[in-house]
């Protein structure tokens, strides 16, 4: 065998047509087009239901529109100045603190359960189901269910009564207690989602790593600390980012359960009220844009603090 280097071989092939013929270029065009054809439906939906409304919203945020009147006036950056000069509009962000604290509990708990259930234990599929179930229930239904749960002499009081605690506490009665209760509901609801994410990430770690670690005498904690945690770092970062932005824009559960009464108003509830109760659609749109920018900023800061570098376990 003579080893002719590749580039020394005759390059033209008698059967291949010269470059630039129609056949070749349409083939190439198709190859470029095919992925876009697949994306056509989702992109159309995305543009219609996300980008177009957002573009409209940004446009409204420079007007004094009331949401229905045929006439509107451009107020320039007036709405934005109002938002940044009114202290009361930003005070509601303190409420997000409760949800932020709840996210920490939520992530730790989800990580704990995901780790436990990724090893072989009895009834593990049953427990996976139990944990994931709340994520399947509609948020509105959850709100109503928990209203009954926290009612005076409701489910929660009954359960506590079984253990001999007879508190006469109105769970949604004071700002602190109401926010803690709502954040608790929020944990219950979103735990499953985090749990599934973590579980998926953990299961993508090759099993022989654990075996090797066990041979080296690593216990469960060390396996978690040196194999699982680095292995799921990207998912963990993503979850933290989502949790922070979720805390800033908590809406569904407090809106349905208390309507923002008793100091449970979040920034999004306040925005909705501005738009639909006081008919300040322009100001509310500006508030929504501001929230978007805040979340982008927070995400960017997080990315800078915790760079998302790929971890190589093997």
């Amino acid at each position: 065998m003579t080893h002719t280097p590749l580039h020394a071989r005759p390059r033209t092939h008698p059967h291949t047509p010269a470059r630039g013929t129609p056949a070749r270029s349409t083939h190439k065009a198709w190859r470029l087009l095919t992925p876009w054809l697949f994306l056509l439906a989702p992109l159309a939906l995305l543009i219609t239901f996300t980008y177009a409304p957002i573009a409209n919203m940004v446009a409204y945020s420079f007007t004094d529109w009331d949401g229905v009147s045929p006439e509107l006036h451009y107020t320039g950056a007036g709405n934005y100045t109002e938002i940044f000069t009114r202290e009361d509009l930003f005070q509601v962000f303190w409420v997000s603190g409760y949800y932020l604290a709840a996210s920490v509990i939520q992530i730790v708990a989800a990580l704990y359960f995901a780790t436990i259930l990724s090893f072989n234990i009895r009834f593990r599929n049953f427990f996976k189901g139990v944990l994931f179930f709340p994520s399947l229930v509609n948020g509105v239904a959850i709100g109503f269910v928990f209203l009954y749960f926290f009612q005076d002499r409701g489910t929660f009081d009954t359960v506590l009564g079984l253990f001999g605690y007879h508190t006469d506490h109105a769970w949604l009665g004071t700002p602190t207690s109401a926010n803690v209760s709502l954040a608790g509901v929020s944990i219950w609801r979103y735990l499953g989602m985090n749990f599934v994410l973590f579980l998926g990430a953990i299961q993508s770690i090759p099993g022989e790593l654990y075996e090797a670690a066990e041979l080296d005498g690593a216990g469960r904690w060390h396996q978690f600390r040196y194999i699982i945690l680095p292995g799921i770092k990207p998912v963990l970062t993503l979850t933290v980012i989502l949790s922070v932005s979720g805390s800033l824009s908590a809406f569904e559960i407090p809106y349905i359960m208390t309507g923002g009464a008793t100091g449970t108003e979040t920034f999004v509830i306040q925005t909705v009220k501005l738009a639909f109760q006081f008919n300040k659609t322009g100001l509310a749109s500006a508030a929504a844009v501001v929230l978007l920018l805040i979340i982008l900023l927070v995400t960017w800061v997080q990315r800078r603090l915790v760079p998302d570098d790929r971890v190589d376990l093997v």
Partner: protein
Amino acid sequence: MNRQLNRHTNRRTVQVLATVAGAALLLPGCTGTGASTKGADAEAPADPAKVSGTITVLTVRTDLVQDGTMKKYAAEFNKTYPKVKVEFQALTNYESEIKIRMNTDDYGDVLLIPAVIKKDDYPKFFASLGTAAERSKKYRFTEFTTVGGKVYGQSPVGVMPGFVYNKRVWKEAGVTQWPTTPAEFLTDLKAIKAKTDAVPYYTNFAAQWPLTSWTYVDGSVHCDPQATTKLAAGDPWAAGSDLRVGDTLLYDIVKQGLAEKDPTTSNWEESKPRTAKGEIATQWLGTWAIIQFQDAAKKAGVNPDDIGFMPFPAQTDGAYCATVGPDYNQAVNVHSPHKEAARAWIDWFTDKSGYDKDNLAISPLKDAAMPEVLKPYETAGVRLIELDDAAGAKVKLIDDESEVGIYKPEYRQDLVDLARGAKKGSLDDFLGGLTKKWTGAQANVGD
């Protein structure tokens, strides 16, 4: 805490770019109706047998649409207008749903005038039903929907705020006369608390909207038809003013432990049978609620005659006073292709349907008699007044601008929280804060 994953963060960066680019392109398509049909009239048909078309009637009465009552009205209507087909659409969350629909031309043929529409904009959205001079001879409440001398809506019933109460419970507590002052009212509630098992007063804090009825004490405390005008011009919470008297009463009720134990988990639907059975003694609502409470009594198997109605505990010149106002006003969509048919429906529903009697409500016709339920009012010599609504539109503008929300629940929810001790501060400071917001906005809202 998380939203679902479809809100991927990386996409957000793209969104912002797309937004800025898109905003410039999409601006012209922003606002809704280009309402070019200004000042259309919905004439009453000359010949009932000839008028034809299918009309869609929007309503808030989901209950009546579900139980077929509305269909019965339509069948009755067809006896006079055989060629008109009436279809109903019941909206549960009327205000917010209609607001979005009114950005298009398609919002039914007959609808209820939503609170969100500015009065000056009525001609852009609705067809007129006639001149104020002519309609006010026959109908009440024409002024509430009059713009430029033309009337744009008509309420099928008149409503009057007041306390729905359980007569039996009040009697058991030894109260036989309606209280005449807020202080006396509180004493009576204390008697109910001491002598019966009932909750003396139920706030309906969680349902939110029942709390807004407290704004309707306005006018009845001092028997003043100009109460609305005063809201627009002066300080609604000045010492001794109607709203302050009403708010102080609500505050005292809650503060003195005369309301339900945990308002945050109160339940409106449950409160009806509970009041009928005598577990709840009193609620501040309006005449529209009487029929609902009586129905709840029938369902619960207790005597519907136990449901009573009393005016606000205040007397002017030795007489109680109550304000009569319109419920939702029906109007004709200015874009409707069947304006005659739509007008025919409104006329028939107001004059001949018996909807007012079915609801034990005050008739919108000036010459009609008072409903049976209000017999005690006649015996007690309660004066009924209609508020002058000339400044109603301005009050709404100030209300939105100031974000006080006198017709919105937050204001009273905060008041109840304050009285329960779930919010810090004093009543005077709270009302003073409202005054500050309100008068600050008054300056920005021109006539």
